[in-house]
């Protein structure tokens, strides 16, 4: 029972990170109908920048800010320089271009930082404190919950309560009509990429201290978990992404705890297959097979 409680909190903490990362995927999917397969690589790049800044200044928080800013800049760059010019007549084109970006980013990071795992310290203790004799949460887990919660709340407010959010939604749903109403659709698309990449960078900052360390491919497995989370939630739904993230986090935690940590990635793959074949529109949809 104690183990179950511990694993549940651990899973929720992991899941929060996947939720943030899945949210980044959903943001771009909604805005541009592209699954950004370069999201993981972009996030790793941001974390490397944070690593450099933190090493130079000694401040985790300066590094944290640097990572978010890097995410914003990368998002804008990728959309303006590359993705804007992709021929969208086939969904494969965007995927292949994103994969090309993965190679470029991972290669550049390897050249600058090398391919060894770099240790990244967490800003707070990762030792779980106990509640009634049961190990529950660490300070770091709390930090993760607060950070992801703040992002979810901020995005919700942005999209439902602000003119910019309204413009972004309209531009995504009906680009031509939005232009006729004076909305700069291209600008909204760039903003969407920037926001998504920043959220992805945050997820990267949160997840790297809990993994083996920093490496150009550090986010590959995380990407799969987040993609699964986004698919579970239905790719179109921000709420779905959050719920999907928590589900994937719990699954990983329970499988690691009760079966074997090395089996956990396979459990995620299995979940992805089951959802794609069983409910391809996500658990919360009533729609039929996904074709785009």
């Amino acid at each position, binding site marked *: 029972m104690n183990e179950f409680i511990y694993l549940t909190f651990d899973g929720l903490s992991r899941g929060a990170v996947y939720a943030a990362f899945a949210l980044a995927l959903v943001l771009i999917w909604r805005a541009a109908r592209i699954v950004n397969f370069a999201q993981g690589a972009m996030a790793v790049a941001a974390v490397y920048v944070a690593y450099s800044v933190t090493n130079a200044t000694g401040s985790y928080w300066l590094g944290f800010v640097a990572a978010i800013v890097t995410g914003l800049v990368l998002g804008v760059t990728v959309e303006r320089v590359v993705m804007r010019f992709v021929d969208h007549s086939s969904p494969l084109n965007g995927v292949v271009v994103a994969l090309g970006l993965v190679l470029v980013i991972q290669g550049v990071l390897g050249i600058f930082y090398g391919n060894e795992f770099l240790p990244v310290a967490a800003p707070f203790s990762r030792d779980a404190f106990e509640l009634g004799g049961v190990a529950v949460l660490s300070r770091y887990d709390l930090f993760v919950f607060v950070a992801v919660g703040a992002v979810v709340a901020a995005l919700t407010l942005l999209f439902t309560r602000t*003119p910019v959010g*309204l*413009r972004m*939604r*309209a531009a995504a*749903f*009906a680009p*031509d*009509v*939005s*232009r*006729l*109403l*004076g*909305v*700069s*659709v291209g600008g909204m698309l760039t903003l969407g990429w920037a926001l998504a990449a920043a959220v992805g960078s945050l997820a990267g900052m949160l997840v790297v201290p809990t993994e083996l360390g920093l490496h150009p491919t550090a986010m590959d497995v995380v990407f799969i978990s987040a993609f699964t989370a986004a698919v579970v939630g239905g790719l179109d739904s921000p709420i779905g992404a959050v719920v999907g993230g928590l589900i994937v986090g719990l699954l990983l935690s329970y499988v690691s705890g009760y079966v074997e940590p090395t089996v956990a990635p396979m459990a995620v793959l299995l979940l992805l297959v089951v959802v794609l074949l069983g409910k391809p529109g996500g658990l919360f949809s009533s729609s039929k097979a996904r074709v785009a």
Partner: protein
Amino acid sequence: MSSALLEVEGLTAGYGAAPVLHDVNLTVQPGEIVAVLGANGAGKTTLLRTLSGLVRSTGGKVVFDGVDLRGTRVEQMVRRGIGHVPEGRGVVTELTVDENLRLGGLWRKDRAEAKKALDEVYELFPPLAQRRTFAGHQLSGGERQMLALGRALVGRPRLLLLDEPSLGLAPKVTGQIMALLRDLRERTGLAVLLVEQNVRSALSIADEGVVLALGRVVVRNKAATLRDDADLRHAYLGF
């Protein structure tokens, strides 16, 4: 110099290599309602899309209120005073009625002004006021047309490009919308370029009629003349 609100001279446009519009000329005076008539595929929708910049013109001139519109981006048209209600209405079905309407005024820097325009539209269309929180896809066809029209009016345009407002609507609703246009013109001096399949109701409110055939203007005349000239009606308008 004439005081025309919109002057189109020798406009040519199309998709890809094949031009859809050839040498189109027409003028719209302030407060005038001009009906654009013609068969399917005559280029009526393309004309409106070219005027608002969604289709790039390949030749000719479009002058709005003394300003050449060449090179003006689509996003700027609403700021110039041109409202375009596209074919199929363009209600964003995922957004609520209120969001759709607010979208029409977002380009304004003056928030108070936008709010005022929004309130006026709600006054003009009481059914929309009752359905503020409904999603676009929950509305009936007539309500969607009101929403699309209202959304364009929130921008307080001086020229409204209106593409087939009667499509799929009951005759009674069509009549209401035509009456509303006439009323708006009288009260606010709104000029309308009205594309319609429903020739009768279009000519009933229009001052002037332009008949397009295969992308060319074949007839330009007073609406009353078009209504009364049986030969013209038979030749081009099919009634």
